[in-house]
Every structure is written in structure tokens, then in C-alpha cells.
């Protein structure tokens, strides 16, 4: 199978300092990759460089495409969530169809994206009149309408209430399950562990760990990169990951519950 994203020794320098350093990554279709790491680790920069939005050394197969072809290969949800004008939600979502040549498919794709994000009833509402959570969902709906094999999302769960956060993660996981590749930066390690099949831990511009959640969220990695500890706990819905105060604070005994 051909990878959905291939990065080879990607390096981004800003003012002589490498903010992303030597990152090589292959993301296969069907995979939901959680990009985790502390603030300033270079997650956002990596996503931008992968898309070719900022200059970088090394190779990114996405960045090599022309802008139109890239927009059909990868959809990107940036962190900036402000919508400049009071365009209707439906119009906003339709922006995702920009790079697709066939207008006849637009209406169905937009309607599908709206309904998946539970926005059909808000289709005519100006985007500037939405609540933060509604806006986040509208922007993700645009991502879905773009209908690309690869989705890059910079903190897609930011600003969402628990129910919608859960829904978004579930949706991204389902999109991955349907054969797309999803790479999402996220801060909620619990969500990352719960929904992603693979985590990439970045710290100071480098990938320091890459693998299944249990292999990445080790005490050493957590302490080294985040300065916290954490543990996988059993729950009725399967193992859940919780972050915990850094050592040498005592770790609660799993047997006693929380």
C-alpha cells in the first residue's frame, strides 16, 4: 500500500534555530496518528511544513504537489479558527470543494459533511453567529467536504465541549477506519490514547517516540517531554489513559481506583 504521507528528514529553521528537526514519517491509509508533545514542540510547524505552507529542508511528498492537487490530496484544519465574514455555514463548508473540478458533486458532499457534524439545522446561519463549538464543527465539516485521502488537523478538539470533543474524535477515527489517513495534533493525551492507533511524540522539534499509544506514553517519555506522569487504567470502555502529577509524587494505586 502507498503511504498517504511521506516525510523525509524534514527540517524547518526559524532565525537559524531548527524548530522542526530531521522528521521522517510515513503515514499509511487507515491510520489515525495523534501528534503529541508539549507547547513549542513543533507540532504546528511540522504540519505546515508537511503541507508546504512554509519553507522547509528535506522532503514532503505533499509539499511537492501543486496547490490544487495538494488540496485534493490533503485537507488541513489550522489552529486559526476565526472566520472573517458572516458567510453561511453551508457556504463555509462548500469552500472545501474548491479544488474539486466537478461542481455536481458539491451539493451532496456539503450536505453529507453538514449532517455528519450535526450542523444541518444551522446551514443558513452566518458562521460569525455560531458558538465556539458550533464553529469548530463547521470548520471540521469543511474538512470533511474536501473529501481527501489525508486529513491534517491542528488541535481539532480545541474549544469543544466533552460530547462534541468525543464526537469529533470518533468521526476522525471513523474516517481513518474508512481508509483515510488522519494526522491530528492534540493536547488531550487521554483522547489521543483512546482514539489514535499511533502516536508521534515530538519534543523540541524532534520525534522522540513513535508507535502505538502504550508504547509512546511511557513514564520515561511522559516525564521527559511533558514533565508529568500518567497511567493506563481499566474502565468499562476499555483502558483509559490519565495524566498524573509528576514524580516523585506518589502514584495512586490502581487497585484503589481514583
Amino acid at each position, binding site marked *: 500500500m502507498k503511504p498517504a504521507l511521506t516525510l523525509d528528514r524534514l527540517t524547518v529553521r526559524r532565525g537559524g534555530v531548527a524548530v522542526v528537526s530531521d522528521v521522517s514519517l510515513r503515514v499509511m491509509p487507515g491510520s489515525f496518528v495523534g501528534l503529541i508533545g508539549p507547547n513549542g514542540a513543533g507540532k504546528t510547524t511540522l504540519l505546515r511544513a508537511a503541507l508546504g505552507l512554509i519553507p522547509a529542508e528535506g522532503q514532503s511528498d505533499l509539499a511537492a504537489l501543486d496547490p490544487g492537487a495538494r488540496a485534493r490530496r490533503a485537507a488541513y484544519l489550522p489552529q486559526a479558527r*476565526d472566520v472573517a*465574514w458572516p458567510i453561511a455555514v453551508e457556504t463555509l463548508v462548500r469552500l472545501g470543494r474548491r479544488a474539486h473540478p466537478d461542481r455536481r458533486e458539491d451539493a451532496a458532499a456539503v450536505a453529507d459533511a453538514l449532517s455528519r457534524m450535526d450542523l444541518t439545522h444551522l446551514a443558513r446561519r452566518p458562521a*460569525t453567529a455560531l458558538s465556539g463549538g458550533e464553529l469548530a464543527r463547521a470548520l471540521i465539516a*469543511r474538512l470533511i467536504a474536501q473529501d481527501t485521502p489525508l486529513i491534517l488537523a491542528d488541535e481539532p478538539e480545541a474549544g469543544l465541549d466533552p460530547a462534541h470533543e468525543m464526537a469529533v474524535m470518533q468521526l476522525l477515527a471513523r474516517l481513518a477506519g474508512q481508509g483515510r489517513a488522519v494526522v491530528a495534533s492534540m493536547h488531550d493525551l487521554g483522547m489521543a490514547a483512546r482514539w489514535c492507533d499511533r502516536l508521534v511524540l515530538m519534543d523540541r522539534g524532534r520525534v522522540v517516540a513513535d508507535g502505538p499509544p502504550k508504547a509512546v506514553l511511557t513514564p520515561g517519555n511522559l516525564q521527559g517531554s511533558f514533565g508529568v506522569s500518567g497511567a493506563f487504567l481499566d474502565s468499562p470502555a476499555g483502558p483509559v489513559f490519565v495524566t498524573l502529577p509528576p514524580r516523585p509524587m506518589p502514584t495512586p494505586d490502581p487497585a484503589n481506583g481514583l
Partner: protein
Amino acid sequence: MSRPVTGPVTGRALLPALAVLCAVLFAASVLTGPADAGARASLVALFRGDGGPLTLVMREIRLPRAVLGVLAGASLGLAGAAIQGFLRNPLAEPGLIGVSASAGLGAVLAIQTGIAATGALALPLSGFAGALVAVALILGLSARSGDALDAGRGGGFGLILAGIAVSAFAGALTSLVLNLSPNPFAASEIVFWMMGSLADRSWIEVWTALPVMAVGWVLLARTARDLDALTLGEEAAASLGVNLPRLRLLTVLGIAAAVGATTAVAGAIGFVGLVVPHLLRGAVGGVPSRLLPASALGGAALVLAADIAVRLILPERDLKLGVMMALVGTPVFLHLIHRIRHGA
């Protein structure tokens, strides 16, 4: 124009309605003037032509004035909608951010140095050059705020401050050049370059400005689809396939050509590019690509209306268009500031 994003149904009749409004105002403009000749006699003189003074007035003074009103208004409305779309800022306006003042400076320099007399297009091209410097400067300043990708909204007041500086500087240089001119009447023109007027313009101004304006319109029309995507921010737009450097170039050149040529022949008519997009944004569902043609028509209508008003209020005086525009535009501007400060 490129295929626009379909907006809400509201305002499907907007463009035809604006076109009709323009036509009515155009007719009213042609029939307004100090020579109180009556509509019927005026129209007969215009279309049939009796060789008398009224025919001359209708064909050589009223008609070019009205046509120039349409061209100037359309250029300013279009430029206003485009620069607001590009900067994602409803306060951006060619007059407010110093583009008109700089175009005026370019035109004044061309007139005073004699460059304007070297060719038919020399004057509008000089206005274009002046405007180009200002637009490039303003966009440069606005882009420098923070990351190259985040031309966020916060730059609104920075943009206005930069615009005030550019405007004041260009205005001062214009005044200086006119004060230094050996022509005794040059200094009296400062008010024209700051306020704008269509009085006693002729077909010469129409034909010299039109080619440069038209180039500007074509360039700005080509920004339409990209401006839609830019609603989501530069990063999202870029990821959607927008070529940002190309968009920037189209916007800068288009605005400079449209506003530069307008200012070179009609002076700096302010507020059109602010008021018109503001009034029409709701009717087009906020969609930038739909706002462009609507603002062009709306700008034409507003300038025609203002030019009729200046002739009705003080028929024998050359009341400057900018005075009327400021009366309409200042409340709108303050309202916008208020809305932005108290959260949009």
C-alpha cells in the same frame, strides 16, 4: 469573474436591482446641472443634437461627468471590497489607508513635472504608480504582524494607524509640491486632491482613465474565488489551493490600477470603498466574491448620488465629492469601529 461560492438565496436579485439603481441615478446625473433646461429639452439635445449650447453641455459636460462617476464609483467600490477581503478587515479602505492620497501625489508629481503631458496614459499611470507604493507598503506592514501566515484580525488598528501615516505623508508631500509650483493656481488644488470632484471633467479624463481602470477591474475580478477561501484565514486558504503570493500581486496591482486611475482624474474620493461593502455585505451573505460585483455597482450608485447631491445643494459652487462622502462615511466608520471594539 470566476465561479463564486453559492451563498444564501437572499440577494439573488441584488445585482439587477443595483444595476437599475445605477441606471436611474445615471439618468438623474445627466439631467442635473446649473443649466436648468428641463428633462425633455435636455434629452432631445443629448440624443438628437441641435448644435446649440445645450447639446454641447449635455454631450461634452454632463455625459462624461456621469460616465466618470460610474467608472470612479465602480473602481472605488470594487477596490474597497477587494482590499477588505484580502486583509480580512472591514476597516480597510483605499482612502483610509492612504492609497488615494498616494495616487494623488503620483498624479500631482506627473502634472507638475510635465510627465502628464507626455502621453494619454501618463497621468493615470502616475496615479497607479503612487497607489502601488501605498498598497505595497500597507500590505507589507499588515503581513509583518506576527507569522507570515497569520494575518489575523488583530491588525485592524495597526492597519488604520499605518494608513493614517501614509495618508498624512502623501497629503503633505502633495501640498508641498503644489505650494512649490510656479503656477499660481496650483496651491488651490490641494482641496481637489484631498476631496475629489467630477466637476467640468471631459471625455479626455474618461478615455485616459478607462484603460488603466479596466486593467484593475480584470485583476480584481480574478481574486474573487481566492478571497472566498481567504475567509477562513491565510493558512486554510493556502491549504485549499490558494496561491497567496499570486493573490497578493493581483490585489495590489488591481487596487493600484483602479484607485490610481480614478484618483488621477477625479481626486481622492474617500469612504466609497468603506461604506459600500459595509452596506452590501449582508445582502451578499458576506461572500467576498459576490461582494465584488455588488460593491462595484453600489460604488457607482453612491458616487453618482453624491455627485447629484453636490450639484443640488450648491449648484454654482464646486462642492467637493469628498465632503458628501465624509458626511455619509464617517458615521459608518465610527459604527464599524464600535462594532469591532465590542466584539463582532
